[in-house]
């Protein structure tokens, strides 16, 4: 009976098979009944375990455990419990606590037991205390003394028990109490004790580096211990020390190398072998340390070359043999080391080979390691990924979640502008399958980062963001939504009225559609409201009442969400203003009327304010409203010059009239102490002044730096206005604080977007463009994408367009359809591979020359992206070029220029000029124009603002001081509009002025497809026309990233010579 059970169990252990579980359970139980006498003397404990095991429900188990606890409580407190019994009680307590019940009543008994002279009891006591207590527990103080004594014991088993306990129970304060003893133990004759002492010291080092600083040399000494197992214990500590301070341990590099060499050469006793591999765990640790030491250090790295070679050679399995788990662990560690240090080409070649083997393995574990290794290798040689694209895609589609996530990590690392769409699409579909917030947030962050960095077009950016909002909802930071709104309003900065209006209407349509869905996250609603308010009625398809009705519905459906309500009412205000401005009579629909009435009585002052502002508009004339809230007024650049140079004249004259010169706030307030410093700090942070303010209000420092005596008579009109002015300035402070917080960041981001999206335009990066077009060519050759691009070859301009995002989209979407219809995996995978890696998996042997040739035609075609009328380039021409360049495959860079010359294209000079164009200048140009325009507008606006304010405040404006006051209000309105631009919700607070925030040259194309599937992603040609240049830039950027590895064949051992030769 028993032997039969053993056989089955053994089998189960070997195969981990699940079908024997039930058998095992019953057999095991019978078995235990038969043999229990040998194992543990207490029947009670066995019964407890058995009862818990047989409990039918959680509740039943609970009641059993509770009864046990009561029982233990009673028994353990009895006087004179025999040692053996007590030991058993303690073990039972540990068991109870492991099941999740409180056993704290027994902690003290466990502590008491450590004092016992009997080693067995002592051990049990230590075991229980290490499991029960944390190092800051009050009872620890009762143990320190015992530990001190035990560390000095002449019985090494006692010492070992104490050392094990020390690792868990000693905190920073108690370290000094035991440190001397532990250090003494480093000289203990027993290697087991020395080993554990090293471990304990390592633990101290982790806990409190400061109290260990004088002992660092100890660890070096231990490295020379005559017993290898002690040395290996020291490696753990040294790994931590080296990662904290690489420089301090550089001089040990040679020692580590020689240790590794000896271990690899099998110089250690056989006892250290594991599955015939010499001390693999020591090798792994050493490799990890070497990786740290060799990173970025050519000299140190060179010392490692030969030993790394040796280790790889010794662990490399024969052909067809997958190798044992442990040799592969060492090999993987070798890859990590090689990719971390400054390795030579030979080692990198080996690393690449091993990675290939991992990826091709059947084992999921090796695949996982392979994907990880691939991520490391392609950081050095990006082209290596191409060779393994099919394996990567296999992993991506694997049912194993771990593998999938790891692969997405890898893809994230290798994202560039050419494959960003496919990768982000993959990430989004993965995000759909997720339910926990942690992973969702993580992947949403990554998607946002990638889209911001690589977005090929604005409309794609907007679509992607909307999807992220929809899926991740409130996990997305609000800033992302603001960025999206800004992008919507700014657009690409090109003026094509027709395209703009097209884009706008499609955006509106898509959001209207989206709003019909029942459950949407707040953040998406905010964006939708903003878009509807800004562009809802612009194209005339929807009447103001329609839009207003929709907005009211949104607000009504989310009664608890004040932010959405704020966006909605602001949007309604804008629409009304547009209507009034256009001279139409506006009558609020009843639904809206009641909504506004609600808000007028709202508890939120913000909502109230917005509602009141809406009401004010109905009393204003059309001309004024038009000025305040011009249609398409958003998106204009607002230049904010904090120096206020236009006031200089005024300041000078004031100074001439005897005014005191302006003192900096800090200087002025620094004279006083205490309170004033508080004031200055609070003011310098532009804190919203709902707190007490200690200084008087009479110095409007922002506008009138002089703060002179001459000014007040003209600058401060009557009391009433000054009061209004005050509230206004208060609010302004709030707003400007937002500007301060958001301003720089916002500006940076926008610039980033532009800059990155359009990439670098330098002549030098061109040659390396080769791979992408070449792969395009390959794809065409292999007939994968015939449908997508063949008819596009007729005109160069279209050809160029075809090289961008769209064809890939089509390929990709068609691949999706293909998947639905039939599982035609290879072709589909190839397509996916092509779109991911930019090359066909089948043909990777194509020469660089072909790439150069194709590139040339591309580059030429690319010159005038907008021009459709250019006669088609003769196909023979490009063919000829191809042949020509194929003759000199290695000189892609020089041949490219020649090629372009040879093609004799008249547009070439233009292209050259464009290529050498400084991107930053281009950028400045882009920014410059709107900003000057904006500054002139803003002055005008400032004036109109004054008019408006005078109405609003119903107080006369002193016109003599027009220049200064206009300046003042200009500043105000600037900050208003700024903040408004950043945050539509808060913008209105600042006053009505900011309702005209956010200009609109925005390219909303493609938004129509927003909520639709990816198959309809390809945008209209009108838009793609416009996108020509940016695509060019993105391709060039892509090329720059590929520049590192032009050599096409990944298997070539000379692969890395370009880099390291």
């Amino acid at each position, binding site marked *: 009976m028993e032997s039969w059970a053993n056989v089955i169990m053994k089998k189960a252990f070997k195969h*981990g098979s699940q079908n024997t579980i039930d058998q095992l359970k019953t057999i095991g139980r019978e078995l235990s009944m038969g043999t*229990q006498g040998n194992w543990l003397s207490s029947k009670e404990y066995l019964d407890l375990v058995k009862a818990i095991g047989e409990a039918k429900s959680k509740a039943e188990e609970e009641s059993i455990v509770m009864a046990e606890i009561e029982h233990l409580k009673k028994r353990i407190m009895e006087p004179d419990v025999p040692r053996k019994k007590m030991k058993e009680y303690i073990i039972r307590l540990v068991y109870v606590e492991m099941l999740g019940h409180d056993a704290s009543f027994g902690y003290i008994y466990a502590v008491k037991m450590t004092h016992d002279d009997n*080693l*067995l009891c002592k*051990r049990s006591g230590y075991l229980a205390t290490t499991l029960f207590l944390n190092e800051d527990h009050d009872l620890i103080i009762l143990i320190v003394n015992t530990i001190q004594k035990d560390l000095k014991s002449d019985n090494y088993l006692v010492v070992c028990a104490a050392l094990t306990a020390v690792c*868990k129970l000693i905190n920073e304060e108690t370290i000094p109490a035991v440190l001397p003893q532990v250090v003494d133990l480093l000289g203990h004759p*027993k290697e087991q004790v020395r080993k554990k002492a090293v471990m304990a010291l390592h633990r101290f080092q982790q806990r409190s580096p400061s109290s260990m600083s004088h002992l660092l040399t100890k660890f070096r000494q231990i490295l020379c211990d005559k017993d290898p197992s002690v040395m290996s214990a020291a490696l753990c500590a040294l790994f931590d020390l080296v990662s904290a301070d690489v420089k301090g341990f550089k001089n040990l590099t040679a020692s580590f190398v020689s240790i590794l060499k000896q271990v690899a050469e099998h110089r250690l006793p056989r006892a250290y072998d*594991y599955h015939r591999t010499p001390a693999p765990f020591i090798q792994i640790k050493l490799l990890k340390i070497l990786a740290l030491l060799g990173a970025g250090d050519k000299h140190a790295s060179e010392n490692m070359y030969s030993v790394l070679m040796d280790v790889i050679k010794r662990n490399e399995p024969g052909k067809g043999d997958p190798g044992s788990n442990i040799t592969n662990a060492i090999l993987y560690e070798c890859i990590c080391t090689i990719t971390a240090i400054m390795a030579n080409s030979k080692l990198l070649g080996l690393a690449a080979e091993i990675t290939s083997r991992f990826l091709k393995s059947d084992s999921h574990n090796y695949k996982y390691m392979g994907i990880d290794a691939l991520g490391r290798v392609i950081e050095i040689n990006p082209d290596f990924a191409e060779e393994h694209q099919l394996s990567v895609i296999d992993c991506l589609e694997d049912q194993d979640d771990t593998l999938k996530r790891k692969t997405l990590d890898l893809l994230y690392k290798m994202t560039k502008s050419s494959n960003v769409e496919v990768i982000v699409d993959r990430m989004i579909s993965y995000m759909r399958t997720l339910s926990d917030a942690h992973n969702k947030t993580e992947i949403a962050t990554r998607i946002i980062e990638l889209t911001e960095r690589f977005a090929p077009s604005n409309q794609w950016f907007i679509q992607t963001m909307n999807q992220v909002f929809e899926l991740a909802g409130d996990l997305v930071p609000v800033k992302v939504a603001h960025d999206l709104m800004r992008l919507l309003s700014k657009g690409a900065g090109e003026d094509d009225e027709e395209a703009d209006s097209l884009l706008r209407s499609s955006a509106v349509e898509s959001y209207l559609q989206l709003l019909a869905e029942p459950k949407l996250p707040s953040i998406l609603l905010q964006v939708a409201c903003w878009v509807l308010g800004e562009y809802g009625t612009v194209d005339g398809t929807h009447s103001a009442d329609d839009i207003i009705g929709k907005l009211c519905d949104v607000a009504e459906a989310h009664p608890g969400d004040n932010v959405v309500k704020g966006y909605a009412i602001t949007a309604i205000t804008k629409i009304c203003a547009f209507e009034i401005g256009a001279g139409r009579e506006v009558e609020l629909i009843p639904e809206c009327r009641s909504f506004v009435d609600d808000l007028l009585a709202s508890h939120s002052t913000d909502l109230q304010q917005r509602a009141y502002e809406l009401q004010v508009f109905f009393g204003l004339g059309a001309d004024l409203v038009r000025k305040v809230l011009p249609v398409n007024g958003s998106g204009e650049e607002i230049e904010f010059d904090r120096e206020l140079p236009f006031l200089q004249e005024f300041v000078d004259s004031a100074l001439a009239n005897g005014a005191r010169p302006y003192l900096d706030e800090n200087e002025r307030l620094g004279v006083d102490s205490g309170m004033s410093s508080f004031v200055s700090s609070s003011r310098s942070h532009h804190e919203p002044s709902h707190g007490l303010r200690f200084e008087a209000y009479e110095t409007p420092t922002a506008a009138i730096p002089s703060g002179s005596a001459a000014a007040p008579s003209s600058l401060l009109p009557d009391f009433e206005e000054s009061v209004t002015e005050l509230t206004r300035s208060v609010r302004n402070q709030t707003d400007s604080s937002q500007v301060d917080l958001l301003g720089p960041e916002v500006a940076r981001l926008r610039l980033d977007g532009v800059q990155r999206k359009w990439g670098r335009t330098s002549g030098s990066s061109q040659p390396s463009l080769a791979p992408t077009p070449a792969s395009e060519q390959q794809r065409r050759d292999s007939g994968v994408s015939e449908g997508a691009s063949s008819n596009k070859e007729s005109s160069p301009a279209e050809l160029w367009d075809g090289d961008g995002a769209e064809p890939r989209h089509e390929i990709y979407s068609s691949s999706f359809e293909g998947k639905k219809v039939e599982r035609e995996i290879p072709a589909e995978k190839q397509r996916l591979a092509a779109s991911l890696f930019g090359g066909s998996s089948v043909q990777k042997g194509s020469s660089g020359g072909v790439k150069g040739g194709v590139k040339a035609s591309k580059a030429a075609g690319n010159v005038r992206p907008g021009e459709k009328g250019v006669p088609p380039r003769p196909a023979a021409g490009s063919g000829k070029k191809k042949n020509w360049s194929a003759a000199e495959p290695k000189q892609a860079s020089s041949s490219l220029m020649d090629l372009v010359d040879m093609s004799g294209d008249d547009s070439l000079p233009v292209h050259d000029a464009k290529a050498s164009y400084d991107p930053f200048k281009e950028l400045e140009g882009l920014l410059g124009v709107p900003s000057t325009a904006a500054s002139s507008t803003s002055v005008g606006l400032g004036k109109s603002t004054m008019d408006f304010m005078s109405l609003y405040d119903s107080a006369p404006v002193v016109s003599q001081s027009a220049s200064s006051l206009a300046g003042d209000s200009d500043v105000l309105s600037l900050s208003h509009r700024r903040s408004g631009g950043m945050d539509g919700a808060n913008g209105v607070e600042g006053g009505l002025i900011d309702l005209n925030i956010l200009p609109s040259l925005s390219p909303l194309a493609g938004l129509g497809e927003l909520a639709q599937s990816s198959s309809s992603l390809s945008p209209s040609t009108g838009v793609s026309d416009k996108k020509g240049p940016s695509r060019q830039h993105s391709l060039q950027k892509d090329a720059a990233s590929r520049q590192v590895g032009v050599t096409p064949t990944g298997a070539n051992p000379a692969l890395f010579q370009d880099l390291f030769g």
Partner: protein
Amino acid sequence: MILAALIMNTQGKPRITKFYDHVSVERQQEILRVVYSVLSSRSGNLCSFVEADDIFGPDTKLVYKHFATLYFVFVIDSAESELGILDLIQVFVETLDRCFKNVCELDIVYNFGKVHTILDEIVMGGQVVETSSAEVMKAVQDIWKLERVGELNPANIRGIGHYKNSRS
């Protein structure tokens, strides 16, 4: 570093739990629940690693092996080698098997203390301290010999600590 070593059965019942940094009892239970739900949702021949940054913080992984009715789970950070830990689990289980002669779940339940002793010989303070199953056996047998002798005659215990032990 190894953050925790867990043994639980396929029903999610903990058999051995050892956390190398202190974790409160409630949090332990939560961790066990999450870990179990992750492991039980993974079918047979998937890879033995699960990224656990949502349970144990960034850069952590579960490395697990499934034997009969038990999961052996080690929680590690990036300073440990995943494949290496897999072999460490192998060492652990081999040692258990040697100690208990065809170990099964019940051995582990009933010999709670012994299993802890074995684990302590292999992993100490979150670091791997011994990787040779034979060495672990030697050390553990020292202790158990003590146990047996101690039960017969407590006076003999003192002699046992001086047991000669040498490798190779």
